């Protein structure tokens, strides 16, 4: 059965979705990811959706759910590389994914995660930019 790989990178989990998501796959991902966060006690989750070209309200909700679940497990979620068409669709569907951090690409996403996580470990460091605090 098809599964989306979840990679561990230090304190973070990296999920790159290379195929178009269908409902079953997304639900599996949600389950696997939450288990993995629990198992590795990851501090951040980075989801790269740059290859996803189709999204519906269900998928939008799944992303929101993943973020909320990870938050409960003490982990932050960053969604990166969203295509313009997907962003417009989500907004038109009324799913602006409030509470999910976003970044333009994986590199920026990693930088963002690090800046969110750091203050917890070392209060002396700069916090995330004001605009990212929600």
């Amino acid at each position, binding site marked *: 059965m098809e599964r989306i790989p979840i990679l561990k990178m230090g304190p973070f989990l990296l999920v790159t979705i290379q195929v178009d998501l269908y409902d079953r796959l997304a639900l599996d991902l949600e389950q696997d990811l939450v288990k993995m966060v629990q198992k590795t006690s990851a501090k951040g989750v980075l989801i790269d959706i740059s290859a996803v070209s189709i999204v519906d309200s269900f998928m939008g909700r799944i992303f929101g759910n993943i973020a909320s679940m990870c938050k409960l497990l003490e982990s932050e979620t960053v*969604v990166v590389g969203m295509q*313009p068409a997907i*962003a417009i669709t989500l907004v038109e569907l009324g799913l*602006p994914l409030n509470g999910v951090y*976003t*970044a*333009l690409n994986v590199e920026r996403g990693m930088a963002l995660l690090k800046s969110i996580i750091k203050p917890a470990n070392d209060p002396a460091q700069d916090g995330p930019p004001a605009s990212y605090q929600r």
Partner: protein
Amino acid sequence: MSVNIALKKRKSEILELWMKNQLADSGLREDLISNDELRAQSEELVNALVDNLNENNINNSDSPDFDKVIELLGGISISRARQGYSPRETGNFILSLKEALLEISKRSSSNVNELFEESMKLSRLLDNFTILTFETFIQGREEIILRQTSEITDISTPVIKVWDGILVLPIIGTLDSARTQVVMENLLQEIVETGSSIAILDISGVPTVDSLVAQHLLKTVSATRLMGADCIISGIRPEIAQTIVHLGIDLSQIITKASLASALQYALKSLKLEVRKVAVFKPE
């Protein structure tokens, strides 16, 4: 003697009469076309019409014999539409040809009944050509309007890169759904291409902000955020601030700045950049 043949023989007379009619018309646009050009145009048309006219096709303006005439008329009316002739001036061009043709038929025939028959036919034929001219004229105008509409859409949504990582989108004119769509698409595409992390929407050129416009703005901001960039709205005039609050629109989720300058300052600050005055050393 048939009128057609008479017309063929008196081609130059028709042209002269037609030219006289056209020149006598008070609506003649000497500023747009010189007399020589007009004459050349008219002569070509008279030749094409009279040469191809015969007993069989006089009742049928769709006859392939008139292809040349129709092509000429089409070309003339489209070029007139582009030059800015009024419909009346374009109409007079072909209607005065009818006058001339009828006048010449009158001169060349003495039989009243025959003349009446022939005049009716000629008249009908020329009327058809007039309608055709008008259709082409309006079509030409519509093409101009369409082109201008698309030009306005293109011009009115420029995305400007003011700094590495900072985009500015000045919005001028009212934001409706169709325009929001174009603005959003352009902005998001540009964010991807330039890898910018901050977009400034400047609304100093938006005359009024009602709840619908505000909703469109919110949508654009949300979409930008989903892409992983921040969106600042700048250029909010006092009147607009008043309207927004009176309408009960909540813009507290959005970073708003009074002027483009302060938005740019904020953007530079969040990119950890600063603009400084360089100390000037005067030579000794």
